[in-house]
């Protein structure tokens, strides 16, 4: 097992520092795997665009896909300019990274001992960039079909800077307070999914419901596009989770296997629950269930065995489905159920990590409750609570500030016309 074969938190957690390759020599296999994983994670953002795009009405599909595509461009630049420095730069007060790495200053090709000792520092940076890209893109599902594009641009930039970057530093940055506390998050249950899911709920509440919500049925315009998007997300998620080992070794293999297992189990469970509830096995339900499983296994993927993955997948299928029923009952128009899938799925996954983590998988991490370490549940709850609070508060403030300069919502006639035409002047289909 190589030095970079363990990762859950930075500064390179003890389980990496104590490994057998402290010389920080670049390993070609590890580097190839992390770069390939970065490309896999990159694919997830346009895949998300297709997943969301199929779920909206045909008059809004292009604008929905544009949200993901635009964020890929926007955060790629933000990350190299200041995002990476704020998230992973030298620690300030255990809360945020410093500005020493702005513009990738001091981020070169020599491995960084704190994060990944066997790959070039820039390889780690670009891998993390793809996580920073997809996270605000996830939120876009909550305000689909009604947000003004200009407001979306401003919101995304501010959110990435003031919500994502600090939470990433707390959990993964060298010296971050949640890392120091001992909270485990292998690939982003708190950093990516709780932050985006909770922010989505706040955004849906602040923006209000779509015109006709609850009165007219809003049907997905292309279920095949959504299923294709879900499949591509599943594919890319192997880079997300197995790549988070930052090395091509046994831990990456384990993360790959549990990711696939939990995803499949969640899809089976969701489909079964919805079959029982709605009396038919929904294709879109199976796709949504798979995504819920991917979300839930994310924080646990480097710490649990395959049996734990089955339980996590089962829980994701049940809890996320119930969350959608709750969301419908309280009439919140989180258009594409980002909160139910990512917020609740991420919360369940983070909590389940504290239940099912085992040192048999990651010998230098920690056991969970079921392996004799009840304290780990408390650490996980602290990480969950902090992520919920910061994401909710930060999102609310940012939306209110953006609304001062640019109205968050399009006008009624623009919403009726559809955002493809009213915001971008282009129809999706010329059929």
């Amino acid at each position, binding site marked *: 097992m190589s030095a970079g074969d363990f990762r859950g938190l930075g500064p390179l957690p003890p389980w990496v520092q104590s490994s057998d390759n402290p010389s920080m020599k670049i390993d070609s296999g590890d580097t190839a795997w992390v770069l390939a994983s970065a490309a896999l994670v990159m694919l997830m953002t346009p895949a998300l665009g297709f997943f969301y795009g199929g779920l909206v009405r045909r008059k809004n599909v292009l604008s929905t896909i544009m949200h993901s595509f635009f964020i890929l461009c926007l955060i790629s630049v933000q990350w190299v300019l200041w995002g990476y420095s704020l998230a992973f730069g030298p620690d300030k007060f255990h809360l945020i990274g410093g500005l020493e790495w702005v513009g990738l200053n001091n981020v070169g090709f020599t491995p960084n001992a704190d994060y990944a000792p066997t790959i070039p520092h820039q390889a780690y940076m670009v891998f993390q960039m793809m996580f920073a890209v997809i996270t605000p893109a996830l939120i876009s599902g909550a305000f689909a079909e009604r947000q003004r594009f200009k407001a979306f641009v401003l919101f995304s930039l501010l959110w990435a800077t003031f919500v994502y970057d600090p939470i990433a530093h707390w959990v993964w940055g060298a010296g971050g307070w949640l890392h120091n506390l001992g909270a485990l998050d292998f690939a982003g249950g708190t950093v990516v999914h709780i932050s985006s899911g909770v922010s989505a709920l706040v955004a849906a509440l602040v923006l209000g419901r779509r015109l006709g919500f609850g009165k007219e049925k809003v049907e997905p315009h292309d279920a095949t596009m959504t299923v294709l998007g879900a499949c591509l997300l599943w594919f890319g998620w192997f880079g997300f989770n197995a790549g988070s080992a930052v090395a091509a070794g046994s831990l990456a293999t384990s993360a790959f296997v549990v990711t696939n297992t939990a995803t499949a*189990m969640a899809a089976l469970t969701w489909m*079964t629950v919805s079959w*029982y509830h709605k009396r*038919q096995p929904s294709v879109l339900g199976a796709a949504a269930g798979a995504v819920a499983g991917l979300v839930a296994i994310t924080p646990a993927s480097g710490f649990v065995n395959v049996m*734990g993955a*089955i*339980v996590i997948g*089962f829980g994701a299928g049940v809890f996320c489905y119930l969350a959608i029923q709750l969301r419908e009952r309280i009439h919140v128009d989180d258009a594409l159920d980002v909160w139910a899938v990512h917020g609740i799925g991420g919360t369940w996954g983070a909590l389940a990590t504290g239940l099912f983590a085992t040192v048999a998988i990651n010998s230098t991490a920690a056991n969970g409750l079921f*392996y004799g370490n009840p304290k780990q549940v408390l650490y996980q709850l602290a990480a969950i609570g902090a992520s919920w609070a910061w994401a909710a508060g930060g999102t609310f403030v940012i939306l209110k500030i953006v609304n001062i300069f640019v109205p968050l919502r399009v006008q009624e006639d623009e919403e009726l016309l559809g955002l493809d035409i009213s915001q971008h002047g282009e129809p999706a289909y010329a059929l």
Partner: protein
Amino acid sequence: MDATTVIAVICSAIVLAGWLVLPHSATTTVKVAAVVSEERERTPVSVSA
């Protein structure tokens, strides 16, 4: 067999057993619009000499 394995087996059993009691086919019927062939849809054009 540890506790995690026991719970995993129970979860799998619940899903598998669930399939035994689920309906065989969708109870909601979806009205499918009658498919009209292009030829029938076309209005006949009479050509007079």
